[in-house]
């Protein structure tokens, strides 16, 4: 009987020793995990679009917890995510309406003249290097780099060779703004409906030669609107969104524009319009 007590004693001793050792090391080498990071990660969309500036969603979550990024920094998640992240962080955030990307060119295959037949690497960046195949040097090249780049499949190529934004999917992440070699995309607030769909700085003579719906720099929109919400930068009208509270302010410009370059976002619906 006594012989069984010896191994029990030895094993019990070893178990006791390891038990104490584990308790000690668990206390001594504890890694503190910020619970907020885990929680924030759970509410983020998790598609790593990079629009916030962080390399990915988990990096953003950590950054928010350490105060490097704003709680409403996630563009893709929008209002909903911003509120949730703010709640986790215990702060109050004001959500100022959602944003959306708009494509500022109307030069489709019918409107903008093609002057050369391009056969080469089929990306806008490569074509832009050569100067483009359309007469307009500012307009859309129509090879769809933006369609490829959009992480939310929110851009599609229209039948006439112009991309259009599917607003239900657009999260205003800004990837298209950075991708387009001609910088035709702009992120605007969803409360704005009317916008200027041209980026051409060419003078009236050149614009008339290459496109029938390009901004000719007639300054009419500057004259019919108030409070300098539209100004001229050379031969291109520039809309100052920060000065516009109510989109109705742009309505006179929409009506008076002789080349119909101001368009309504709400009227752009799907491929048949662009």
């Amino acid at each position, binding site marked *: 009987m006594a012989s069984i007590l010896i191994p029990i004693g030895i094993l019990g001793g070893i178990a006791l020793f390891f038990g104490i050792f584990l308790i000690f090391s668990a206390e001594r080498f504890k890694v503190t995990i910020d619970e907020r990071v885990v929680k924030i990660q759970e509410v983020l969309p998790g598609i790593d679009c990079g629009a916030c500036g962080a390399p990915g969603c988990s990096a953003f979550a950590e950054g928010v917890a350490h105060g490097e990024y704003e709680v409403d920094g996630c563009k893709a998640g929008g209002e909903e995510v911003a509120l949730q992240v703010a709640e986790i962080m215990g702060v109050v955030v004001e959500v100022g309406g959602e944003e959306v990307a708009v494509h500022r060119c109307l030069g489709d295959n019918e409107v903008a003249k093609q*002057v*050369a037949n391009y056969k080469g690497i089929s990306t806008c*960046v*490569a074509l832009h290097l050569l*100067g*483009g*195949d359309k007469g307009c*040097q500012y307009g859309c090249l129509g090879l769809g780099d933006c369609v490829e780049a959009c992480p939310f499949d929110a851009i599609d190529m229209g039948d006439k060779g112009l991309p259009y934004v599917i607003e239900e999917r657009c999260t205003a992440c800004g990837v298209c703004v950075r991708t387009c070699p001609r910088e035709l995309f702009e992120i605007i607030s969803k409360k704005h409906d009317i916008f200027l769909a041209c980026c051409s700085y060419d003078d009236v003579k*050149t614009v008339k030669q290459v496109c029938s719906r390009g901004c000719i720099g007639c300054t009419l929109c500057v004259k019919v609107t108030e409070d300098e919400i539209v100004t001229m930068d050379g031969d291109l009208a520039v809309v100052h969104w920060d000065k516009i509270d109510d989109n109705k302010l742009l309505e006179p410009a929409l009506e008076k524009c002789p080349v119909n370059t101001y368009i309504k976002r709400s009227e752009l619906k799907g491929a048949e319009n662009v």
Partner: protein
Amino acid sequence: MQLLTFKGGVHPKYRKELAKDSPIKKIEPPEFIYLPLTQHTGIPSKPIIEKKDEVEVGMKIAESNGKLSVPLHSSVAGVYMGLVNWPHPLGGRKEAMKIKLDPQRTFEWKEEERDVDLFSEDQIIEIVKEAGIVGMGGAAFPTYFKMKVPPDKKIKDLIINGAECEPYLTADHRLILERAEDIFKGVEILKRVLNPERVWIAIEDNKMDAIDRIKEFSSSYPWANITIHETKYPQGSEKQLIQSITGKEVPEGGLPFDVGAYVQNVGTVIAIYEAVCYSKPLYERVVTVTGPVRDPSNFLVPIGTPFEYLIEASGGVFGGTMQIINGGPMMGIAQVYPEVPVIKGTTGILVQNEKETLEREVSPCIRCASCVDVCPMYLMPTEIYKFIELEDFEKAKELGVLSCMECGGCGYVCPSYIPLPQHFKYAKAELMKEKK
């Protein structure tokens, strides 16, 4: 005599017979001249005249604007119409000075010949800079900058490049035939500035008449060594020429003077001679207009003349124009607008008709390594191409895409018709953008 050559390279159809027997013709200037401010590698020039100002031939109209920049001179007498956004032969639109010709004022450059010995080396370099001279073989690198060799580098071999390996083009060939003596006089000026141990004049063996012409002067200029090179593309490339003659390889990212060599194109040498001896700035150059035109020619054209005017002057195209190329078929750039002007680096204008621009379907790489065999820079085009397809430009850089000189040899031999050089150009532009 043994033919000199380098490793790699291709043998395209040269088609030089089209324009090689056409003597250099001076062309009447067109009504409007467009002088882009970017005609050289480096910073664009800065206009120094006002709109509506009267200009004379050879008058300085834009000045050097920084360390790597040269002035620009008017190529016709007329009125300055202001800056316009005009198509540029290297792609896109750039600012150009528009000048309206005054047909009443005709002009011949008449200046007393000056004695070169009056000038010091530094003065010669300053004259070359003020004359707006750039490398006329195509790259348009400011010549004065190249002539300022760092004091710790010694030039051993001065190489005069008359190889003209690019198919179709015959401008340099005609210059050697018609102005051989001026070339020697220009080389004498270069010799004084650079003080080389040896002088080489390099010509490919498909231009035997040019070689004979140069040899006629060998008794009066005994220091010149004439080297005959195998007709192979890209024999006329700077680094390949140095390798052919001296056997030395310019290190990666290095410049010719790292191996004691200095290469200058024959056209540039003549421009240097005219600038120093006759104070004539660079406002005109020889341009080959060739392809399926009625009368392929070598024209002496005022810089800024639109391409379409020159194509018209050579009799127009038969078979329907499909493509206008600035330069030759291997390295040239297809143009979007026919109204692009000739710039200082325009060696030729090649027109292609429908029959010549056969479109071929690109098929996948079969890993035959033909491109690796022909690459004169010892790169692996097929590997680099794969990384560019994946947009991994850093990896492409590791594999040496920046050493690619876009000679087009790989694309020429590819049995799958993959547009390799186009991809390398694209990757280089992307890498440059990242650097900025």
